[in-house]
Each structure stands twice: as structure tokens, then as C-alpha cells.
């Protein structure tokens, strides 16, 4: 295997090959639970944990599992880590576990995780694989978080409401009420809002990429046009 660059892995996971904005994988939880920051963060952390664990485990057993049965083996590994995460959430953040409901066990079917196991972890040594899982998970969680924040602000006019579900009693008054008590823009909390905001985020990423590309192009030195021969006749301007 060729040398892996940790810089490249982190850039891929966080931006260039972001699972949510570029690969468009794992959209089901992305769209379903990002109605508020606390839900998004909860699911983002759970996915991150599963992704790091499964990538490491898949990488460790990559020489022992034959190609023919690798997919079931990967799914078993992912399911194991998902179950562990689910039990942890049940033990420490029970209310959040109840709110996220079916989407915690559904992490097993998150294609972003299986995709990383298949495309990266099964070909790399454990350390880069774990790092890739960390970066992909962070990229996914970051998008979930931004999506949750935007939808929570526009949809229910709050930010960081109910954070105590995740961080315990000390976070009980982190919530901000932005537009008054009666504010509510329900469509942003419902699935259409998730689709709209995801689309706008993807558009925003593409705009930023296009601008960066244009800037790089502009700074490149352009080859001089025209003849380079020394002019020997006529007036020199």
C-alpha cells in the first residue's frame, strides 16, 4: 500500500470527500434527526464512535477475512459497535436515546460507515484507518451539527435547547430563546426543511470550492504569449 498522508485523510474527511456533503451517504439520519442541535450532536457522536471502532476493527482483521465474506463480516463488526454505543446511550443519556429512537440502531445501515470500511479501512493498517474513521466521523458530525443549528434556529427559534439531555444538569440553561416564545416555523423542523437546508449547504460548499479554485488559477503564473525573439527592427516601444 502506498504511503498515506494524515493531512490528506483529514482534509478528505472534513471537506473534500465529506460523507454528508459530497458522498451524500447516511442521509437517512441526516434528514431525520437534525431538528435540533442536541439531537444532531447526539447522533453525530454516536456515528463517530461507531466509525472509529469499526474502521479500526476492520483494518485489524483485513488479512484474515476473505473477499467473498467480507461484507457480512463488516456488517457484524459495525453492528457490534452500534450495539455498544446504543447501550452506552441507554445508560448515560436515556432521554436522548429515547428521542433518537430507531435512528441509533439504524447506524448499522449507515452507508457512510460500511463505505469507509470497504473503501479505506480494509486496505490500510489500523492507525490510518482509525484516523480516517475519526475524520470522516467528525466531518459527518459537523454537517449534522450545522444542519441541526440552522433548523433549530429557523424552525423553533431556539439554539442549544435541552442540551442537558447530553451534557447533564450543568447544561440545563444553555438554551437560547431567540425570537420570543410563540415563534415557530414548522416546515423547517419537518423533513422538507432538512432537504432544503442540506441542499443549500451543498450549494454553499460548491460555491466556496469554486471560489478557491478560481483563486488558485488566478495566482498561477501564466505563460507569456507571443514571440520571445528580440526585436531587431522598427521602433522600440
Amino acid at each position, binding site marked *: 500500500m502506498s504511503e498515506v498522508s494524515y493531512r490528506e485523510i483529514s482534509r478528505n474527511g472534513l471537506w473534500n470527500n465529506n460523507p454528508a456533503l459530497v458522498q451524500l451517504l447516511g442521509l437517512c439520519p441526516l434528514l431525520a434527526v437534525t431538528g435540533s442541535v442536541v439531537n444532531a450532536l447526539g447522533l453525530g457522536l454516536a456515528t463517530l464512535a461507531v466509525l472509529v471502532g469499526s474502521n479500526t476493527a476492520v483494518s485489524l482483521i483485513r488479512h484474515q477475512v476473505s473477499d467473498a465474506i467480507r461484507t457480512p463480516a463488516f456488517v457484524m463488526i459495525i453492528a457490534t459497535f452500534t450495539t455498544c454505543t446504543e447501550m452506552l446511550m441507554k445508560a448515560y443519556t436515556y432521554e436522548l436515546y429515547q428521542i433518537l429512537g430507531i435512528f441509533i440502531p439504524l447506524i448499522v445501515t449507515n452507508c457512510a460507515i460500511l463505505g469507509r470500511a470497504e473503501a479505506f479501512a480494509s486496505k490500510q493498517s489500523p492507525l490510518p484507518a482509525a484516523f480516517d474513521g475519526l475524520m470522516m466521523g467528525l466531518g459527518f458530525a459537523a454537517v449534522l451539527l450545522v444542519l441541526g443549528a440552522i433548523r433549530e434556529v429557523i424552525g423553533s427559534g431556539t439554539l442549544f435547547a435541552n442540551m442537558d439531555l447530553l451534557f447533564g444538569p450543568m447544561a440545563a440553561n444553555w438554551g437560547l430563546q431567540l425570537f420570543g416564545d410563540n415563534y*415557530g*416555523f*414548522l*416546515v*423547517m423542523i*419537518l423533513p*422538507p426543511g432538512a432537504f*432544503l437546508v442540506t441542499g443549500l449547504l451543498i450549494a454553499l460548499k460548491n460555491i466556496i470550492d469554486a471560489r478557491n479554485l478560481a483563486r488558485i488559477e488566478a495566482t498561477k503564473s501564466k505563460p507569456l504569449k507571443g514571440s520571445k525573439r528580440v526585436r531587431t527592427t522598427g521602433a522600440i516601444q
Partner: protein
Amino acid sequence: MALTRNSSPHAHGPRSTQWVMQQVLIATVPGLIVLTSFFGIGTIINILIASITAIGCEAAVLKLRQRPIGFYLRDYSALVTAVLLGLALPPLAPWWLAVTGTAFAIIIAKHLYGGMGFNPFNPAMIGYVVLLISFPLQMSAWLAPSGLVIDGTVAATPGLRDALQIVFAGNAIDGFTAATPLDAFKHNSGLLVENFYQQTPQFNQGRWAGFGWEWVNIAFLLGGCYLLGRKVFTWHAPVGMLGGLTLMALFNYDGGSSASNGSIIFHLLSGATMFGAFFIVTDPVTSATSNRGRLIYGALIGVILFLIRSWGNYPDALAFGVLLMNFAAPFIDYYTPPRTYGHGKSGTIIHRSKED
């Protein structure tokens, strides 16, 4: 010699988009007059707020997209969207309702999809559905039509001063609201239709289908006939929709039992039926393309309208019906191509023969 190659259609009519949109605006006038006479100044305020928002949003987005602003504003399409949405909103709704709905319609439903002529969904209906889903309370507070006698008191609509206070300062309008006929009918439990009509003020003071609303529908029907007369659109989509609705009502009207879903005339002259049939399903951009396709498209909207009215959660469902069929319009187009000149029957998809 420079030969430019143009794609079809090669025959151009003299009618501009601007002319068509102007005709639509003119045709809404009878409906607007009747709505105003029954529900007061609120509808006009709605339309004004929506129009200003629409023109502002359209100009802003066109500038961002670096398109000619004056050219697109002069085709009146943004104004038509605003007027249609303004007519559909409940009179005396808070001002931000019209602003939110129109901005959503113009920016997201129209321009994000490519602007005039490229939007797959009817912008006015998108705006309406977003509002209906997000603000069900404000969207279902319809005024009692003026002149309706409920429990001995004659309903009156607020004057201009009160109306402006309700719209902009957020004063309560509870004193003025009443269930629409569709809403009232939906909550009929256990009465024969005949008895229900006698007991409910909305119906016993009306002539055919509920006080006030029947005239609103007739006025929109008149406006629609004007548009048909000016050949702004063909008869297929409106007739399809009214036909679909009529057939469904005919098959499900059981002579007026307590479980009845309403008579044909009740469905034809209630809620948004005529408004939808002549001003919404006739939208050339989002409907099916061929005449046969438009007939099917309209009929299915009529069927969905009846299904949701009778068994759904919402009293009226024009916007849902139209949006669902907007999804289906390309599919309908695929199966209803018009006859190509020089080829066989219409409806046959032309495959290249093997000799080619």
C-alpha cells in the same frame, strides 16, 4: 452564409408572456371583488403585501443571478404568483404570512429551480403549502362572510382601520372568524345532510353550497371563462379537474346520509375548486404538455382533491393535489405525446425503425 439552427417550436404566436399574465391578472378581478365584498379589505391587503414582496424578491434574485431585471419583471409572472397566493391566503392574516409565503415561492420554488419556465412546481402552491404546514393556526382562521347570521348576530368584517391593526399590529381576529363550509361539513357527525344543512348557518343561508363561498367560486368561474374566451389556455385541464371532482362526488354521494361526502354542487362551489380549476391547474409551466395529458393531469387533481377533502386531515386540498400532480406531469407527458406530423396515431412513442 451563417445558418442558425433553432429548435422547435418554429411557429411563434404573437402573444407574449406579458400579455398572458396580464389576462390572468384581469381575470382574477371578479373573484377579488366578490372576496372583498364578503370578507372585507383583507384580501386586497394580502395581495398588496405579496406583490411588493414578490417584486422585491424577484429583483433581488435576478440581480444575484446576473439576469436582466427589467425584462423579467415586465413579464408579470412574479406578480401573478403573488396575486394568486394573496387570493388564497385567509383575509386579515398577519403580514408576515404573506411575506414568508411569497418569498418562499419566488426564491425557492421558482428561482432555485432556474426561474421563469423551469420550475417543476407551482410557486404559489408551494408558498401556500409551506404556510399551511408551518402555521396551521393562522392559515385556518377564515373570517365569517359578512351578512352571515350566526346565533342571531350578523357577521360584519372589520373596517380598514381595524383591518390594518389586525394585519400589522397583530390584534386578535377571533371575534370575526367562522368555519368555512368545507370545514363545517367535515365536522358533521351523525346528521343527515338535509338536517345538517338546516341547522348550520353557513348552509341554511346559502343557496347551493354555503353562504358566500358559492359566489366566490362563481366569480372565479366567470374569470376563468374570460380566459378561455381569450384562448389563454385550452379547456382540457379545467374540464379534467372539474370532471374528476364531479365523478368522484357522484360515486360517493349516497343521497345525503350522515356519512355522505357531499353533493356534486357542494364540491364544485366550495373552497378553492373554481380558483384552482381556472387559475392553478392551467399553469403552462408545471402542468402536462399535450392536451390529452392536461385532461389526465386535471382529472387526477380533481380525484386527489376529493380524496383529501373527504378522508384526509385537511378541509381543502387543492395545493396538495396540484403539487402531487406536478410530480407526475413528466410521467404523464411520457405516455401522452401528441401526434407527430407525418406519423401514425397520437400516443405512439416513435421508435427508430430497424432500417435506419
